[in-house]
C-alpha cells in the first residue's frame, strides 16, 4: 500500500459519500444519510493515514517535508480540511443534508488533483524559500479557513434553493423539503463565516510573518497576497453588514457565495492566471 493508492480510495469514498448525500437530499431516506456520513468518515480516516504515509514516504526518499508543498498536495489537503470541517458541523449541528452541498467540493478537489493534466503528483524536494517551519502553520491556517468558506458557500447555495422553493409556495414534500429551515441555514452560514474569517486572518498573518523571515517584507502586494486581502475585505463587509445593518437571509447567502468565489480565485485563479511568489500551481 502506498499513499497514492490510499488517496485513490479516498477519492472513491468522497464520490460515493457525495452521491449518498445527494440521494438523501432527493429521497429523504434517513438510512442513505447514515451511509453518506459513514463513507465521509471512512474517507477522511483513510486520507489521514495517506497524508501521514506520504509524509513518511518523503523521508524515505531523503527529502523529508510535510505534504503541503505543491498544487497536488494542497488540493488533497483542501479536501481533507473541507471534509473534516463538514463532519464537525454535521456532528455539532445535526444537519446531515448539508453534506449534499459540501462533500462534492471535497470530491472535486481530490478528483482534480488526481486526474487533471499538469498536476505533478510526485513528492518533490523543497526549494530553499519553502524550507521554513512557517510553511506548516501558514498552510494549515489558510486551508482550515478555505474549508470553512467552502462549506459557507455550499450553505449559501442551499439557502437560495430553499428560498426559491418557498417563494413558489411549493409544499414541504418537494425537493427542498428535506433541507433545514431557512433560519437554521442562515445561522449556520453566519457561524461558518465567523469561523473561517478567524482562520483566514491567522493564515494571512502567518504568511506575513513568514514573508518577513524569507524576504524581509511582510507585505508586498503580490497577487496572492492581494487576493487574500480582497477575500478578507469581502468577509469583513459581510460580517459588518450582518452585525450593524442586520443583513440576513438572501443577502448573506449571496455574500457567502461571492466570498467563496473570491476564495476560489485566491487559491486557484491566482496560480493559473496571474504570476507571483505563490506560483506552485505551475508545477
Amino acid at each position, binding site marked *: 500500500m502506498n499513499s497514492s493508492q490510499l488517496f485513490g480510495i479516498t477519492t472513491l469514498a468522497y464520490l460515493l459519500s457525495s452521491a449518498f448525500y445527494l440521494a438523501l437530499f432527493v429521497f429523504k431516506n434517513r438510512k442513505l444519510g447514515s451511509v453518506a456520513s459513514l463513507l465521509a468518515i471512512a474517507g477522511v480516516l483513510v486520507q489521514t493515514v495517506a497524508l501521514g504515509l506520504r509524509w513518511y514516504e518523503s523521508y524515505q526518499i531523503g527529502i523529508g517535508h510535510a505534504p503541503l508543498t505543491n498544487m497536488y498536495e494542497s488540493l488533497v489537503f483542501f479536501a481533507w480540511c473541507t471534509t473534516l470541517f463538514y463532519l464537525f458541523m454535521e456532528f455539532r449541528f445535526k444537519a446531515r443534508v448539508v453534506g449534499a452541498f459540501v462533500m462534492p467540493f471535497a470530491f472535486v478537489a481530490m478528483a482534480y488533483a488526481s486526474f487533471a493534466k499538469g498536476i505533478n503528483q510526485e513528492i518533490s524536494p523543497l526549494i530553499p524559500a519553502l524550507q521554513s517551519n512557517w510553511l506548516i502553520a501558514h498552510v494549515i491556517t489558510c486551508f482550515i479557513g478555505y474549508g470553512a468558506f467552502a462549506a459557507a458557500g455550499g450553505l449559501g447555495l442551499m439557502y437560495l434553493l430553499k428560498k426559491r422553493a418557498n417563494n413558489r409556495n411549493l409544499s414541504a414534500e418537494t425537493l427542498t423539503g428535506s433541507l433545514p429551515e431557512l433560519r437554521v441555514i442562515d445561522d449556520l452560514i453566519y457561524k461558518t463565516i465567523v469561523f473561517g474569517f478567524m482562520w483566514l*486572518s491567522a493564515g494571512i498573518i502567518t504568511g506575513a510573518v513568514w514573508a518577513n523571515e*524569507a524576504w*524581509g517584507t511582510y*507585505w508586498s*502586494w503580490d497577487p496572492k497576497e*492581494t487576493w487574500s486581502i480582497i477575500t478578507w475585505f469581502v468577509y469583513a*463587509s459581510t460580517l*459588518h453588514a450582518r452585525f450593524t*445593518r442586520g443583513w440576513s437571509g438572501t443577502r448573506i447567502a449571496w455574500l457567502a457565495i461571492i466570498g467563496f468565489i473570491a476564495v476560489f480565485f485566491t487559491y486557484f485563479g491566482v496560480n493559473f492566471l496571474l504570476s507571483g511568489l505563490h506560483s506552485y500551481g505551475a508545477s
Partner: protein
Amino acid sequence: MTKKKKNPVWAFFASVKLALFLLFVLAGTSIIGTVVPQNEPAQFYVQQYGASTAAFMQRLGVPDMYNSWWFLGLLALFCLNLIVCSLERIPQAWRLVTRDNLATPVDRLRKMGIRKEVLLKHPLAEAEKEVASHLASHGWKTGRRAVDGGTLLFAQKGAWTRFGVYIVHTSILVILLGAIIGSPTVARKILRSPNFAFKGSVMIPESREADYVWAFQTHEKINLGFTIRCDYFTIEYYANGMPKTYLSKVTILEDGKPVILKDGKTTHYLKVNKPLTYKGVTFYQASYQPYPDFIVTLKNETTGATRTSIIPAGKQINWPDIGASFGIINRETLGEVVRRVKIWFTDNKDKPSRFWIETGREAIIERPSGNFSLMTKQLYATGLQVTKDPGVWFVYVGCGMMLLGLLVAFFMSHRKVWAFLHEEKEGETVVLLAGSANKNKLGFEKRFASLVGSLQR
C-alpha cells in the same frame, strides 16, 4: 443617546455604510493591481496597452497603484472611518459594561426570554444566602440590593468582551502605524533620514566587504555604519539538480574587527529563511552572481607550503614558492555555475598533467616531486537583501491583537444573571432567575438551565 445634533461631517465618518462602501471599494480596486503588472518600466505599459491607455494609467498611478495617491487616500479614509466609528460606539459599549444592573425593574425580568422560577422552603434571608453562594460556586459573584418587595441579586461575566471588536479595530490601526514607521518613503521624504528605515540590496563577492547598500527604487547609497564581509558563498543541490541551499558565510566588522554576535560567534551562516539581524538591520540571502574567476588553494604536501588566491581561467599561473605552475583550461557548466574544471598542472619535472576535477572538492595530484593538494572553487558574489524596518514589531503586535480581538469578539460573550427573591409565605421564598447573553444565546440557555437545575436539587 445625546440629544444635541450631530455634526454632519462627523456623522458621515461615523456611518457603517461608509465602512461597507470602503471595504467594497478597497476590495474592488485592489483587483486592478493583480491584473496589471506592477512596477514595470514605462515602456512596458506602452507596448502592452498602447500609448494613450498607458498615459492614462500613468496619470492614475496604476503601474504602482498600491502606493498611488488615490489608493493611499482610500486607506486613509478607511482609517478615519474606523477611528470615528469606534469613538462613536465605545461610549455605548462603556455604558453597557458599567450599567447598574441592580436597577433593572423586576417587571423586565419577568419578560426576559431566559428565566425560571424556583421555590425555596426557607425564609428570605436564608434563601438569599443559599442562592448567592450557589451562584458564587459557579463563578457568578453577585451584588445585592433590597428592592420593593424583596431582594435583587445580580452577577455578570465577560462584560469586557464588548470591547473585543474595538481591539480588532485598534489592531488594524496599529498594523498601519507599523507600516508607516517602517516605510522607506516616509523615512526619506518626511523624516529626511533614509537610514531610519530602508530596503535595499548589495552584491558582495567572496572575501570582499561592504559598508553600504543600494536602496530599492531610488538607488540611493545608504551607509550601514558597520561592515559586512562575505567569507564564502555556496549552493548545494538535490540529487535531481534542484537547488537545495543557498548559503553565505558572513562576518560583521566594526572598525575592521570581527564582532561577536548574539550566539557567541563571529561568523554567521545566512540562508533563505535564516536571516541575520545586527543593529536593527536584517540581511537576507536573496540572490547570487557567479564570476568567471576561481579561488584556488594549492598545497605542497611535501614542504607544507600553501597559497590561496583568486585567479582567472585560461591563464598560466606560476607559484614558485609552492613549486608548481598550473592553469584552468576548460570548464563544464550548468547555466553560469561551473561544476567541473579541467586543470593543466606541472611541477616542472616530467610532462604536465591534464585532468578534470569537481569544483569545491579537494584533489590530490601525484607528481614526480611529491603530492600536491588542489582545490578550486568558482568565485561568487552573494546577493543580500538588506532591510531596516523599525515598524515591524508594531505590525506583529497589531497582528497578535487582531487574533485576540477576533477571538473575544466572536467567541466570548457578555452574560448576565439576575435573581429576584421575595417571601411569599412565611418561610417560603420564590426565586425568579433571569439571564441574558449578547452572543451564543443557545449555549447560554443550556448553561442557565443547568445552573437553575442544580439550585432546585
